[in-house]
């Protein structure tokens, strides 16, 4: 049973299935090219840097910083309207790849570009856990 059935659930494809399986285990896997050594996101069958065809899955640190963000005062649909405003962000991971996510676990007004964030998984169903980000622990 889905916890939030009306949300837009990702549907894994053969090239993305290992990513979503890892998310299910609360692990962030991204691809690393065996030829040029660079990481890429989203998963592909070829390296988007050198077109190499040997891609390995590497566990990412799950840490990065906010490149840009917006506080959404209007949700795309009722399924997303539940918890007040949503923070949509682009995050550059330490592995130098960029991904979209939501920033959770803090006051939206606290969010700023350059903020250090870390991954936290949100379980949406028995199969799908979504990678989200929250402010990194300030030491």
């Amino acid at each position, binding site marked *: 049973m889905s916890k939030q059935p009306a*949300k837009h659930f990702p549907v894994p494809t053969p090239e993305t299935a290992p990513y*979503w399986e890892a998310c299910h285990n609360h692990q962030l896997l991204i691809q690393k090219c065996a030829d040029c050594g660079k990481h890429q996101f989203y998963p592909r069958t070829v390296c988007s840097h050198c077109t190499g065809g040997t891609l390995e899955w590497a566990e990412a640190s799950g840490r990065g910083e906010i490149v840009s963000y917006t506080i959404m005062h209007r949700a795309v649909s009722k399924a997303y309207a539940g918890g007040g405003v949503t923070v949509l962000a682009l995050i550059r991971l330490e592995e130098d790849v960029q991904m979209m996510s939501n920033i959770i676990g803090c006051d939206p007004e606290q969010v700023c570009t350059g903020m250090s964030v870390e991954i936290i998984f949100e379980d949406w169903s028995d199969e799908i856990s979504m990678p989200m980000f929250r402010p990194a622990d300030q030491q």
Partner: protein
Amino acid sequence: MLGALRGKVAIVGIGDTEVGIVPHMGATGLCVDAIRRALDDAGLAKTDLDGLVTCNSMADPYLYHAEMIAEYLQIFPRYCLGAGAGGGTSFTVLHHAASAIATGVCKTVVISMADSLRSGMTRERAMTAQSSTGHPQFESPYGPTVPALYGLIARAYMEAYGTTPEQLAAVAVNSRNHAQLNPLAQMREPITVEDVLASRMIADPLHLLDCSLVSDGGAAVVLTSAERAADMKQTPVYLLGAGEGHGHEHISQAHSLTTSAASESGKRAVEMAGLGPKDMDFAELYDCFTPVVLIELEDLGFCKKGEAGAFVEAGNLALDGSLPTNTHGGLLSHCHPGNPGSMFALTEAVQQLRHAAGDRQVKDAETALVHAQGGIMSSHCTLILGREPG
């Protein structure tokens, strides 16, 4: 080589449907109505057409849209193309159609695009359809609206260059000023910078009035060779330059949030035309959200990076400014039926270059730059049009 196209093809007919809220027509009806109007404007019959280009509708989609429109209108083209690159589609197909004419594939092409986002869809369905531009696995699950995807660009741009909310608002006010002179525009009530800033926040930093409209409507243009155009009913408007640039499809994959592939499309178009930004008497720039106009002004070479906010605030985009822009009111105030949106920038540019734009006529307009982009600052196309074949 695209240079071989310069001045070889002209726009000889234009047609805008009613726009705004048009509940008595569906998207298919609007698409065909635009063709009928453009044929009438050109003084041509449907039997004169041997090329047809459309884009699909969200409200009334068909698997093979252009083929369906041909059937609906009972025309039997030898060149029939349904295109799709979001808001950039209209301009991108123009040079493809022009190439087909110049190479003899066909003689006379109509490009018609329409949709019915306001009356043909519920609000939620229209929002969901438009936001399906997000990557289905790596963006859409996070619930982005289209304004939010552009909000990411807006924030990055403003923080990079110190652009103010007032400078963004000045873009919306400029468009509304022009819409007041356009009896066909959807939104004609005067607005001020304060009104924009006081409108409710949609996706911070974008207010409601920083966002374009949701509309019904369609428009068509008829293209033929410069030779044939010379004997036709209307003053021909020639295609002088065209260029495309494609940077990404999904915003999370963008290499830059503050510089777009407009810098490439614009460079290619001016090279083909043998003209520069300073030669342009006016511009029609894709304005789905206010910051997009600022980025385009810079990437197309009208301003240095970071200077467009001050350029707009100083009034340069007004009809009596140095670069009158979005003279019909743009997507912000004239209408925005989705993918067909930039068609109206094209028909407006033709009206201006025919010197038939009435109260909003740019004096002695000879040459124009029109720019459209689709996706989330993804696919760009720049066209340069003129009264003389070059």
